């Protein structure tokens, strides 16, 4: 849109420029304008290039070297990448990140859809407003604080076990984060708590924009609640659903705060994720090259997931 309109505006004066001198003046004016334009963007570009773009390039660069951060580095080609995909500990951390997508992404979006569709008919505006604030709280506090809260919830004598005992399921009580077999799922529950409320509110805001007469027509045709969910609500929310998926999948793949504060990747390596692994390799074991290779793999994973989803959103906008 913008491209077309600006091209149109430029061609009009170009056609009328008969007088050479006038054209030269015009050109000078244009260059001046362009320089002024660049001055506007310069501060942002400087900060951005120095502290985001350059570090990205550097990470890629580091990833081809063996370097302990102090001494001279040696070129190892793709050695670090081969290591990432063959070392069972490193590779399993990538597996964990994908596993967490179930909890960070699939459950919150799926459950969020059902819950949002149920809540949309609640009449009480005050109730809805209060709910919105509560549902947003997990997203407002730092992820690290959420991890502290849930470490206590899931502790031996924490609230989760207390509730299990209250309904006579004490036999299922667990040291959720301290047991190899449950730790990753427990971390997943924290992630689910972080994402669910926000997904619900975002989906609700989309439902508000769906034409209500569609629902009325569907009920007249005898379509039940589930039928309406799949035939009207979900197609109408395609944009919001892709946004939810994008955000939550990125949060799952690049998780750091929650895992670092709740389990540090343990017990053993049962909850190790690429984010925490990068930190450990780079800053505790001084294997900067290997850490960088893993970081690049992580970045590529995120881009591979976000790219197609983003296309879905764009497609929606044009339709």
């Amino acid at each position: 849109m913008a491209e077309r309109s600006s091209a149109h505006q430029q061609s009009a004066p170009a056609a009328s420029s008969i007088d050479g001198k006038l054209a030269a003046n015009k050109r000078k004016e244009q260059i001046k304008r362009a320089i002024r334009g660049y001055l506007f963007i310069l501060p942002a570009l400087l900060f951005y290039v120095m502290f985001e773009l350059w570090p990205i390039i550097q990470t890629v660069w580091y990833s081809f070297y063996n370097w302990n951060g102090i001494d001279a580095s040696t070129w190892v080609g793709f050695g670090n990448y081969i290591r990432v995909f063959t070392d069972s500990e490193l590779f399993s951390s990538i597996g964990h990140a994908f596993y967490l997508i179930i909890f960070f992404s699939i459950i919150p979006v799926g459950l969020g859809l059902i819950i949002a569709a149920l809540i949309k008919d609640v009449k009480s505006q005050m109730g809805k407003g209060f709910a919105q604030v509560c549902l947003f709280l997990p997203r407002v506090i730092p992820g690290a604080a959420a991890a502290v809260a849930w470490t206590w919830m899931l502790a031996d004598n924490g609230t989760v076990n207390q509730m299990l005992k209250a309904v006579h399921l004490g036999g299922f009580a667990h040291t959720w984060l301290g047991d190899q077999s449950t730790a990753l799922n427990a971390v997943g529950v924290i992630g689910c708590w972080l994402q669910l409320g926000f997904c619900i509110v975002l989906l609700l805001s989309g439902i508000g924009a769906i034409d209500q007469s569609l629902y009325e027509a569907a009920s007249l045709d005898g379509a039940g609640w589930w039928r309406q969910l799949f035939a009207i609500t979900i197609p109408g929310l395609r944009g919001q659903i892709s946004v939810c998926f994008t955000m939550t999948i990125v949060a799952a793949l690049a998780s750091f705060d929650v895992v670092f504060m709740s389990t540090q990747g343990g017990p053993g390596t049962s909850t190790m994720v690429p984010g925490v692994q990068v930190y450990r390799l780079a800053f505790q074991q001084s294997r900067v090259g290997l850490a960088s290779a893993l970081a690049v793999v992580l970045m590529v994973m995120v881009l591979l997931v976000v790219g197609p989803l983003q296309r879905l959103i764009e497609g929606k906008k044009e339709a």
Partner: protein
Amino acid sequence: MKKPLSVRAAGNIVLVVMILFSILPFFSMFSAAIQPQGSMPEGIQFTAHPHWENFVDAWNMANILPLLKSSTILVLVVVPTVVFCSALGGYALAQLRIPGRGIIYAIFLIGLTIPFETLVTPLYYEMDGLGLLNTRWALILPLIGLNLSFGIVWMRSHFEQMPRDLMEAASIDGAGDFRTFIHIQLPLSLPALSSLAILTFLSTWNQFLLAVVLINDPLKRTMAGALQSFVGTYQTDVVLLNAGALLIMAPTMILFIVLQRYFIRAMLAGSVKG
């Protein structure tokens, strides 16, 4: 149009359950935080004699006051810089017809989804090289750079929607680009600017990874980053740990509740555009 009773009832029940689920962890922390110090609290329990003084002790032990000051300094430098640079840059990309604006925009887009873990190692050595490691600048400068990719995308899309005539009318009046920008465009952009400020505030205040890596001294970190050292020190004392963690969370929660309308609007719009 009446909905079946069962659906309406289910809606209300689900709403209540979701509210409880969202605030349960806070409630559980609070319950533990008011138990006697040194005791071993059990889940959520009723206390006839809440020990409010725990919060005073945790306030001192977690160094809340210096932390508040430190986080506020970070926010006061990062947020205005990001908002101003984004507004300038977004305006240039949307309204001033500079050559190569498509490429510049694409460069900023790249940064939108890059995980911070990818950048933190080179940033560490970059800050070390600049001699800024363990100073507040080590956090301020990267946070400005990292928030700008969203800021630029956000402000550009805002200025794209502004009518061109406005600028042309102003330039006929003889106002320069910069004056048009300051006196006409900025005042009309307050909603977009305030949303950007809120989002930048949240991402700065809650920043954890960069704070932990780039600044050793917890008192110079963000509130979130300081949590790490606090938890490390008081891991075994459940009561004080929860009291302190609640205090560390409190400022954002209070600000959110006071400005909830603006926060919710900004976060919803921000996620859709980002």
